């Protein structure tokens, strides 16, 4: 991790700040509400949706359980089709490979297709340090880049911005834009088209990610809406794709499942406007050079965890973000990572390590375990299960150091150890509760009970527990 996400505070702290931003909450409520409705409608159209989800899960499990085999197969097929395959252990190595390739092409700028992998490795920052300008071409990425902002959503990185804010950013940062620009989304899209047109037509090098990489054909797949992807994948002379090693599917046929699951889950469409597939290089059609960089960057650590591994099934659709009541209220920045929301809460601590920084150990706790995410996940990632598992990892990592929480948990465990002890605890609760109670209610309390009592009253604990009533019957 380099500069962008460095020093992010623990989730609760960042969330508190975000909750104070009423504009943010309005924007998020509107956007996630819209997309939830669209997704629900196109999913309801498919009587076989559950069968598709099961197939999606099984395809990705098959991939992960034999990942070494499929990676080697992919490498063979890409190479045979005229592509060059590189391997990168971590972000620094991947960035170095990209920089060397751009320099070899004698270029000082690149156009980019939206890609989570290159955000994760903070490629743009690394390129800038090497004197290479990176131009984001996806509309939302462009909004984030021009706004000197951070992405807050997997699919729509600028989801936290509404049309008026986007107009202001364009007005401020986009050369040639005048006050005549309105906040009509169609006009804003047209402004982005005009702004990027020349870049597309002249760029020598493009950098992309990939939604899928097919092992048995060596084919890469990019799923998009705007056509910026097609521009980047087709017009420049050199194409560099940075792809996480978990993005594979074993067979060409497997795409028939993924291409149905992804658009319905992400943008709520039967099919996204454009999907491009390419295999190596095709003479006379598209780039002359194709480089595939296979990225680990923590993925093999996640792969080694029996329960955590399922996070690698993720196809980055964002459905879990859009239904998450926590995400809807805090937005993505609070998660301190390019992967926000429920999937981020289980992916980030695994890619970085659960104790890597301030925010990572708090992410598995950034959920009520309500399960809405699991309900919509197109590849059946049991996010609540993984969250609870990672909570245990976070707790276990701190064993041996003093912790008030662990002390309290130990005390609770002791009291729950027998019904006799439980009765003692119950008497303490009843007595304590009556001491603190005013007019039948317990109001605001100091210390460790502040978090609970700051906004909630508690009814005075009754004198008689259930078991004393039962015994007196």
């Amino acid at each position: 991790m380099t500069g962008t996400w460095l020093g992010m505070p623990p989730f609760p702290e960042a969330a508190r700040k975000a909750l104070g931003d009423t504009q943010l909450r309005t924007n998020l409520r509107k956007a996630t509400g819209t997309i939830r409705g669209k997704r629900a409608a196109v999913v309801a159209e498919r009587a076989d949706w559950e069968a598709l989800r099961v197939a999606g899960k099984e395809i990705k499990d098959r991939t992960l359980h034999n990942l070494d085999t499929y990676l080697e197969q992919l490498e063979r097929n890409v190479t045979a089709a005229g592509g060059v395959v590189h391997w990168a252990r971590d972000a620094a190595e991947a960035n170095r490979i990209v920089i060397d390739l751009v320099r070899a092409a004698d270029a000082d700028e690149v156009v980019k297709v939206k890609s989570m992998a290159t955000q994760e490795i903070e490629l743009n920052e690394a390129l800038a340090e090497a004197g290479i300008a990176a131009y984001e071409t996806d509309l939302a990425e462009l909004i984030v880049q021009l706004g000197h902002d951070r992405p807050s959503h997997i699919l729509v990185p600028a989801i936290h911005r509404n049309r008026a804010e986007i107009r202001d950013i364009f007005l401020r940062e986009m050369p040639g834009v005048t006050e005549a620009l309105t906040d009509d989304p169609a006009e804003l899209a047209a402004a982005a088209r005009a702004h990027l047109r020349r870049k597309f037509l002249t760029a020598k090098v493009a950098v992309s990610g990939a939604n899928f990489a097919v092992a048995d054909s060596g084919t890469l797949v990019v799923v998009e809406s705007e056509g910026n992807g097609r521009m980047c994948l087709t017009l420049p002379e050199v194409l560099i794709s940075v792809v996480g090693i978990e993005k594979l599917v074993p067979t060409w046929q497997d795409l028939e499942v993924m291409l149905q699951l992804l658009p319905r889950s992400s943008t709520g469409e039967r099919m996204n406007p454009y999907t491009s597939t390419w295999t190596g290089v095709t003479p006379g059609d598209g780039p002359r050079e194709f480089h595939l960089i296979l990225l680990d960057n923590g993925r093999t650590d996640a792969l080694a965890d029996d329960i955590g591994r399922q996070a690698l099934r993720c196809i980055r659709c964002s459905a879990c973000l859009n239904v998450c009541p926590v995400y809807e209220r805090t937005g993505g920045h609070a998660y301190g990572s390019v992967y926000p929301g429920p999937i981020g809460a289980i992916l980030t601590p695994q890619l970085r390590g659960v104790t890597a920084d301030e925010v990572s150990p708090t992410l598995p706790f950034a959920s009520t375990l309500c399960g809405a995410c699991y309900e919509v996940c197109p590849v059946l990632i049991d996010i609540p299960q993984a969250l609870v598992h990672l909570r245990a990892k976070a707790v276990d990592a701190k064993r041996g150091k003093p912790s008030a929480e662990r002390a309290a948990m130990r005390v609770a465990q002791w009291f729950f150890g027998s019904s006799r002890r439980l009765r003692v605890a119950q008497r303490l609760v009843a007595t304590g509760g009556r001491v603190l109670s005013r007019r039948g209610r317990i109001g605001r309390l100091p210390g460790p009970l502040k978090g609970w009592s700051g906004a909630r009253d508690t009814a005075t604990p009754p004198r008689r527990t259930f078991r004393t009533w039962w015994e007196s019957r």
Partner: protein
Amino acid sequence: MRVALFITCFNDTLFPATGQAVVRVLERLGHEVVFPPDQTCCGQMHFNTGYQRECVPLVRSFVDTFADADVVVAPSASCVGMVRDFHGRVAEVSGDRGLAAAVAETAPRVHEFTEFLVDIAGVTDVGAYFPHRVTYHPTCHGLRLLKLGDRPQALLRAVEGIDLVDLPDATECCGFGGTFAVKNSDVSVAMGTDKVARVLATGAEVLTAADNSCLMHVGGLLSRSKSSVRVMHLAEILAGERG
């Protein structure tokens, strides 16, 4: 039918009226209720907060306590979810095969109250009377872990005199989330505040659910905002009688 009641530590200590209501409904329907006195806690708080090791003795004690019961009923969707879906995982973490086998024996016999009534006792009309305007919040663990579906509403609809009104966006979490309510209290309160607004929009006198934990959270917010809306476990509505 002879039914072993798992009251849950939370209801035992803070909401005995719920347990009394469960007993009243079950006995009214002709079932025999027994209360194994050694019971304490299912371990949900420890498990969900990351203290899986600390959870092991609690699971052991649970399976010992209920080993002989044919049918166990608990008035808490989240505790039943813990027992049925996660006691197996705790046993796995402990590495104790005997415990794993005991869990596999016991866990499937544990039922949430409304699930027991509709699926096992085969009733939806329990002969209750409750002449009030009520709205029902399906708690997340009841909805998504236990998949209670329409069972609670079917029971409520059969109550004489009830005016049952739909809660808008009912399936959205209330924000309680166990220790989430403390660890992430700001988000928890923000979610709960939105839930409160929806409850108030229904004009209901009573908010009900199959879990007192969520009700304690939403009820605590309602009380702080000086609302007159009461929260009440569904069992207490089903226990209501004329006169």
